[in-house]
């Protein structure tokens, strides 16, 4: 199991990390080594073993549909890098989701 530099570049893009070429080179080597090590899980015979996603085996934890006080707009916007018209101002969005 190994990972190519191109794959690392793809992962960086998917992860929204603008990495330099030098960083890509460096990380590619390290990730290759790490992935090689973690791939050891594939040695384990686990057929029919259910995956464990939660450490606590409980179901149905709900809250009642009851209002809880919100933040004020001032609190909500206090840490924003930029605001306008009581909204979060963000750079232009190129793609529609």
């Amino acid at each position, binding site marked *: 199991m190994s990972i190519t530099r191109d794959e690392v570049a793809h992962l960086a893009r998917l992860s929204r990390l603008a990495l330099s070429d030098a960083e890509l080179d460096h*990380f590619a080597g390290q*990730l290759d080594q790490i992935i090689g090590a*973690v791939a050891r899980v594939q040695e384990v015979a686990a057929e029919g073993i259910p995956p*464990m996603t939660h*450490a*606590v085996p409980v179901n149905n934890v709900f809250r009642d549909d009851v209002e809880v006080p919100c933040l004020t707009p001032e609190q*909500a916007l206090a840490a924003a890098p930029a605001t306008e018209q009581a909204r979060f101002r963000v*750079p232009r969005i190129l793609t529609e989701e």
Partner: protein
Amino acid sequence: MATELTRLSAAQIAAAVASGEASAVEVTQAHLNRIVALEPDVHAFLHVAGPEALAAAEDVDRKRAAGELLGPLAGVPLALKDVLATKDMPTTCGSKILQGWQPPYDATITQRLRAAGVIILGKTNMDEFAMGSSTENSAFGPSRNPWNLSRVPGGSSGGSSAAVAAYEAPLGIGTDTGGSIRQPAAVCGIVGMKPTYGGSSRYGLVAFASSLDTPGPLARTVLDAALLHEAISGHDWRDSTSVDAPVPPVVAAARQADVSGLRIGVVAEFSGEGYQAGVLARFNESVELLESLGAKVIEVSCPHFTYALPAYYLIAPSEASSNLARFDAMRYGLRVGDDGVASAEEVMSVTRAAGFGPEVKRRIMLGTYALSSGYYDAYYGKAQQVRTLISRDFDAAFEQVDVLISPTTPTTAFPIGERVDDPMAMYLADLCTIPSDLAGNAAISVPCGLAPEDGLPVGLQVMAPALADDRTYRVAAALETALEQRWGGPLLAQAKGLGE
């Protein structure tokens, strides 16, 4: 008097405050003074909240004067890991991307500490987003081990551990995802406890790996750890994974300090190659000591524990890659490259590249890889199955024994810089602690001596079934009592270089 106050245990301070022997303000001021004196060397704190701490102390003193009933930790100072939200102090998680961020809310743990009259001295250093075992991944420089300033204090809760070991605070809060409470506690020579997953609320704990993260106490004595454990635990409706059950009787267990008749299993897989000789020597001595105290010790095999490390390094980064997506420069935190021309997507990418350190980037990319379509089953899915097998190993073991024990870490504190660009070597520090995170059960680390070769502390780990946290305290307290008799005092009394 000032120095003496910082030498007291949390239980002693609380008693002194309650009786009026010392005021909470005096106690707090003594610790703040010590912080001023030691921080240039130790660098345990990212933010010291002097005025806020003194105001909280005054409040405790006022309540006492008014005859109000004080909690068992009222007036006791504490070092809070900078991963828990505080509305009157910054919360940075040791990351540039959150530098200066002040949350508009308190974590549940923060609220409970305040309600208990605990004095929060400030926010402590940590590996960025709790990813690491040395605090070297902090964007704000490493903390140093009070036993030897050229060594790491462990991590990721290295700041809280160093603060407690350096007598800057009698109590600390850490968070444990792969060993981040127990490992730094072990290498700093203090007590660190990872409660059962869900036993302490995660609300307001900035997530690293949601299915593993567990806040817990750090202290110089087992009883202090238990008192803090009790103060922060209990059901929280804001955390859906919070356990809705009574808090295990940890304080009573710490006072009981008795292992006679207890069945103790030594994990066979956690010894041999890769373990420092002095660590194994101290561990083995402790095993004999426990036996001499009336415990029945047997060796137990947990075959899948050897796969815990690889499973962990798939599960934790996968969750982290998703949890850390929100640091996108849109609503809070750092924003880089917003020149009016760059798109939101570009600003996100440039900010994240500038704001995250190398270990965080590695783990985000690793997690993104493990969750990708086509790789999910082979990596994340398989790791979750291994997690089940590890949990079943625990179940099988706990049918034979009441608790399991092992060294907390394979080695003592390593030199600063030694493993910083060797991720695989760094990851080995959590070899013994990870299984309890994956299974979600309770585990504590208690000091068991110094390794002869480097004079640095060794920790012994006690693991118990989920919700049987009290058993770990029973064993840890018994061992602590017996060892301190042998040493003629606490282990920390043997530490040199604490700026006396």
